């Protein structure tokens, strides 16, 4: 029986960190991201740093109240993400959650934020449902979404002559969504989808799927996948001489760290849509240099977006002198966005920040002057065109 007492005492001692805490009158931000897995390089510690920079540049206080920040790793799991979100909002008096890559986690966190009237600034996740069926009055979808990616890469590639497509899609909801949105855009621009194949997530070997794509004779092979799957597809496409054979690859979700991992010889010629590139102009270069000095990698659009979102949020609190979720978000929607990354961005009623997107092409090794010099800008896609919805807006906030 001693056993039981000691065991319980031990268990309680170990669970002490879970006890409730109360914080004072501060503005508290929580950066919830993927710190250790697939997306750690495009979000993760870089997003935390971006948020920190935003708070520091703002001055560290807003209307006399201190600004604090905490962060955590959701490991791309909706359970862990929602557990942390609940704890942050209930126990730790967090006012706004920032970033959250992985759409499934973002959807779960948005639910919780909405039920507690707390702010959710989405930079990492891409699903357009976040501002569609599942939209919330306390969320801002800041950086990009699947509609913009489809409108960007899809229409630009078709207009340049790539009118027959074959999709290699990662077999999960996000991959399907990317494929669906891009198909709609391709067909709306007069193109045709000749076929598609769904590969399980975390497939290592794409040779079979690439052979099917080759056999289809489509001009464009659309990669509706991301991360490791996309990198493997591109690497192996180079092996099988896909590009030499006359077909082109279109990456539907590509980040600069992916190109860094692939290397220019394998990736050159790839066309992709992003909201930001470190080398676009003096303002982006200046900000990116500060980021690079800390993180040793150039920032992705998501990390740059975190900076912008946090700054805009703090400005809105300053203007309204309130940290009530719906009030602040309303102010954010009423104010245009202007920073190093965004010019005259406007937030729609459903929460989407309508901003210009850019079509880039990966440089050939000879064209690159050094590490991270990977993109050349091909076109600007104006915000209204990039974020144009293919059908009626499904967000209940907008309909009624």
């Amino acid at each position: 029986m001693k056993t039981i007492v000691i065991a319980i005492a031990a268990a309680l001692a170990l669970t002490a960190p879970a006890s409730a805490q109360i914080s004072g009158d501060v503005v508290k931000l929580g950066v919830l991201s993927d710190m250790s897995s697939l997306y750690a390089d495009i979000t993760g510690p870089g997003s935390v740093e971006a948020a920190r920079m935003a708070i520091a540049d703002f001055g560290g206080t807003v209307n006399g109240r201190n600004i604090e920040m905490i962060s955590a790793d959701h490991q791309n799991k909706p359970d862990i993400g929602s557990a942390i979100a609940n704890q942050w909002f209930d126990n730790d008096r967090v006012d706004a959650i920032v970033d959250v890559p992985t759409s499934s986690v973002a959807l779960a966190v948005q639910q919780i934020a909405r039920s507690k009237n707390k702010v959710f600034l989405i930079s990492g996740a891409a699903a357009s449902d976040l501002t569609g069926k599942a939209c919330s009055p306390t969320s801002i979808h800041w950086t990009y979404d699947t509609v913009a990616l489809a409108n960007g890469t899809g229409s630009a590639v078709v207009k340049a002559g790539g009118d027959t497509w074959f999709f290699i899609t990662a077999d999960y909801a996000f991959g399907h969504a990317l494929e669906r949105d891009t198909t709609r855009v391709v067909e709306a621009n007069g193109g045709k989808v000749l076929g598609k194949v769904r590969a399980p997530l975390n497939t290592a070997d794409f040779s079979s799927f690439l052979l099917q794509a080759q056999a289809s004779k489509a001009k464009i092979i659309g990669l509706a996948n991301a991360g490791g799957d996309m990198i493997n597809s591109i690497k192996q496409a180079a092996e099988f001489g896909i590009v030499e054979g006359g077909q082109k690859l279109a990456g539907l979700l590509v980040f600069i760290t992916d190109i860094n991992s692939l290397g220019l010889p394998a990736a050159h010629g790839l066309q992709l849509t992003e909201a930001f590139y470190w080398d676009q102009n003096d303002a982006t270069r200046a900000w990116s240099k500060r980021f690079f000095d800390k993180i040793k990698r150039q920032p992705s659009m998501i990390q740059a977006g975190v900076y912008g979102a946090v700054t805009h949020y703090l400005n809105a609190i300053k203007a309204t002198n309130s940290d009530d979720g719906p009030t602040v978000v309303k102010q954010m929607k009423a104010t245009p966005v202007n920073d190093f990354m965004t010019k005259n961005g406007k937030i729609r009623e459903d929460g989407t920040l309508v901003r210009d997107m850019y079509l880039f092409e990966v440089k050939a090794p000879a064209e690159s002057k050094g590490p991270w010099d990977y993109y050349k800008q091909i076109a600007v896609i104006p915000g209204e065109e990039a974020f144009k919805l293919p059908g009626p807006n499904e967000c209940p906030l907008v309909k009624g």
Partner: protein
Amino acid sequence: MFDWLHLTIPPAPALFAQLLVGLINGAFYAMLSLGLAVIFGLLNIINFTHGAQYMLGAFCAWFLLNTFGLGYWWALVLAPLIVGVVGIAIERLFLHHIYRLDPLYGLLLTFGLALIIEGIFRQQYGSSGQPYAIPPELRGGRNLGFMFLPNYRAWVILASLAVCLATWFIIERTQLGAYLRAATENPILVRAFGINVPRMITLTYGAGVALAALAGVMAAPIYQVSPLMGSNLIIVVFAVVVIGGMGSILGAIVSGFTLGLVEGLTKVFYPEASNTVIFVIMALVLLVKPAGFFGQAR
């Protein structure tokens, strides 16, 4: 309703191409599962760290290239040696103490070691991969008529076959192999003959690990060199070994090739299931013939 099954059978040349690609993957699976089969067959240890050791081999190749400028051909020899030494260290420090226990403890221990190794690498290198190019001698390919076969893939199939046959030969047909097999069945008797059994066991584990690392080096140019590369493959490799028969080298080789072919066909007809078909086969084999196709019941 049936759009999940690609009911249109592709034309013969295309099907042939898919089969060849499947065979190439099978060669890779065979080589990868060889180390696992050797370790289980001879040492009765379920080496869950195998995936992490495969990853170590690939990272070692990348490291050798980036820090010392030693290319692929050097890595083929050096990486297995280096990782093999790491394997020997693991055996001496950890595995040594648990031989007398239920083999399931071995599984749990090696699982824990795999988590440690992968966690450390993820912390250090993030999870996006490191670039590693195909060596210039093996770039390009030839047009076989029904498909374009990259030279590197042809190399993979030949090298895997060579390694598999060599390993099988050493274990089944040489005196060293005979000693190893005898030592597993009756270590005391073999020791009585003056053979240093513990050292043989250590070296065998090291050899199995070196095989995993060799597979990692061969994977580096075509798959992403990332800390997660092992954990994605480990349960598939397990399935291959179980189906072939957990103690049997020949079983691992044959089932590796066969499963590569089956997976290749699945990718044509029902691609979403290509990761799962191996488990269906594993379940069936375990129910009908639990020792696997070539194994002996233990």
